[in-house]
């Protein structure tokens, strides 16, 4: 089942027909558009501005014939005369992508296990999702449709920058619609809409080690995982209850994957934890600075840790979304003025927009935003 779903999820679609094509031209001269992506990230919203410069060859090709990518198209994007080297497809060279895919496959084979990988320098700072970007780069293909969210929103700087990055370096179609996306890179949320088998969710992970809080030694945490010694994890939850009367961990809430590994679901709100459980979509996690990749294959058990007398509970909200009246979704607080005015709206902007398009109206939806 795992293999089938993984296949459907898109990994084998990234076929490198000629591995050599990936680096021959690049090894000699720096990519022409070398500073392009960095500039793109910095400019944030100007995601389409310099697309032409960096990706004109690919654009020209797919635009002209719509034929399947020819040899080399997935590796190096070359001009016909082979004198104008530019980026590999999706920025990373093929050997790196292969290395990352191996790590991903290992992660899928051992759900929840943190696989070390040779994380690359990316043209963006650590903390901006370098792990997620590398994973996305390794799994995305030209036919994929990419969605990038940050805290549930498609229009925040991080999301816009990463979307622009892949538009530029892979020329893939992008979307803000959860339903239309085949690859979704996320920081801190899981979309409200239930993900399907053909989708991959890529998480940006700052600190992959759930035991880090109590055990600073990597050698020791790896041993604890290996021997399945997880008493420490409950120590953290115990401390929560002792201090606050309830489990006060609200994000990065530890889970047990397929009854074996304890995993940090990245700093998503615990509200999203149940969505990971037996999800039809493949879930991949990339931590760039910490050089770890892990995965939850489709249909895998993901159980949040708890105590018998303090069972796991997700956050609940006393009112529906002020814009689309959705209930049972994760809400963000928005400050309206400096007199204490505020409202709660869907954190998942796409979900909110879709509902409003379908005619749902919340208490404040009349107000201009």
């Amino acid at each position, binding site marked *: 089942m795992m293999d089938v779903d993984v296949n459907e999820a898109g990994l084998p679609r990234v076929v490198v027909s000629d591995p050599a094509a990936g680096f021959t031209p690049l090894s000699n001269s720096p990519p022409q558009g070398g500073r392009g992506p960095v500039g793109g990230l910095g400019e944030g919203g100007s995601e389409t501005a310099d697309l032409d410069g960096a990706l004109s060859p690919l654009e020209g090709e797919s635009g002209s014939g719509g034929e399947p990518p020819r040899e080399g198209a997935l590796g190096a994007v070359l001009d016909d005369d082979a004198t104008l080297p530019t980026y590999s497809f999706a920025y990373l060279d093929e050997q790196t992508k292969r290395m990352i895919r191996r790590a991903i496959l290992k992660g899928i084979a051992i759900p929840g296990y943190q696989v070390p990988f040779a994380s690359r320098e990316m043209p963006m700072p650590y903390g901006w999702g370098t792990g997620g970007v590398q994973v996305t780069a390794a799994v995305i293909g030209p036919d994929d449709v990419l969605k990038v969210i940050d805290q549930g929103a498609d229009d925040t700087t991080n999301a816009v920058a990463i979307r622009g990055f892949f538009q530029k370096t892979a020329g893939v179609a992008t979307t803000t619609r959860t339903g239309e996306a085949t690859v979704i890179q996320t920081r801190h949320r899981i979309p409200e809409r239930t993900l399907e088998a053909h989708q991959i969710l890529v998480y940006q992970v700052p600190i992959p080690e759930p035991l880090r809080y*109590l055990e600073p030694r990597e050698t020791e945490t790896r*041993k604890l995982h290996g*021997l*399945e*010694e*997880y*008493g*420490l994890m*409950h*120590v953290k939850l*115990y*401390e929560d*209850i*002792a*201090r606050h009367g309830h489990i006060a961990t609200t994000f990065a809430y530890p889970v047990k994957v397929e009854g074996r590994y304890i995993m940090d679901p990245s700093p998503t709100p615990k509200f999203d934890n149940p969505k990971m459980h037996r999800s039809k979509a493949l879930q991949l996690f990339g931590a760039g600075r910490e050089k770890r990749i892990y995965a939850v294959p489709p249909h895998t058990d993901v159980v949040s840790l*708890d*105590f*018998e*007398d*303090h069972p796991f509970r997700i956050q609940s909200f006393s009112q529906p979304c002020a814009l689309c009246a959705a209930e049972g979704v994760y809400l963000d607080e928005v400050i309206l003025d400096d007199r204490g005015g505020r409202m709660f709206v869907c954190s998942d902007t796409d979900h909110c927009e879709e509902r409003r398009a379908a005619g749902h109206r919340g208490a404040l939806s009349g107000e201009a935003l």
Partner: protein
Amino acid sequence: MSAVAMLPDAETERPLLKVSRLSHYYGARLGCRDVSLDVYPGEVVAVVGESGSGKTTLLNCLAGRLTPTAGSVEFRMRDGRLRSLFGLTEAERRLLARTDWGFVHQNPAEGLRMTVSAGANVGERLMAIGDRHYGTIRATALDWLARVEIAADRIDDEPRSFSGGMRQRLQIARNLVTRPRLVFMDEPTGGLDVSVQARLLDLLRQLVADLGLAAVVVTHDLAVARLLSDRMLVMKDGTVIEHGLTDRVLDDPREPYTQLLVSSILQV
């Protein structure tokens, strides 16, 4: 008198820990050599000697923290079978270390988690063996804090804010909460004030008696050995030079070194 047969005692008791011809070398340097020792359920054995005599090396080998160069250490598992410590998988050995064994370090910071509360320090072993009920874990922690004379209102404080004596008592509670059958102690009263030492010794005596613990106590303090132990080994230069009933070794020492050691005790 002749009516009573001179029978050897029926060997009803079987050793909990069986050490045979154990040696440990650090490269070419001797740690301890050719030590044999049986520890029976409920008895306290002291290992005394000056620093560098090999007693801590021996303790670490017995507790599976150091792999001996030669010889064997066997422990009687709950199923009654003796198993070689170094034939166990690491997972089995670590399970043993957090259930059937305790290890009390001289420096409590080594045996405690200094940044989590006292209650969690005591509860960790329970959670590690699968206890998942906060209420019972906390109640057990409270009970143990009381047993080691730590006020209930300190349960949520971190041991960083505790005095040396309190930390040591907390470490003892943390070790004993799973009712281990064997506890290793490395200079348990080292570095404490005399009055704090006395309190700790009294506590240890009582706990050992109440719980029927077997213990191996390494100490350079002969008074600690006398108060806590039934039997003792005297180590010098890595070997055991004298062993026997604690009060006999102390009151009627045979070896020159033991006589020197005993005569060196300061009298108050």
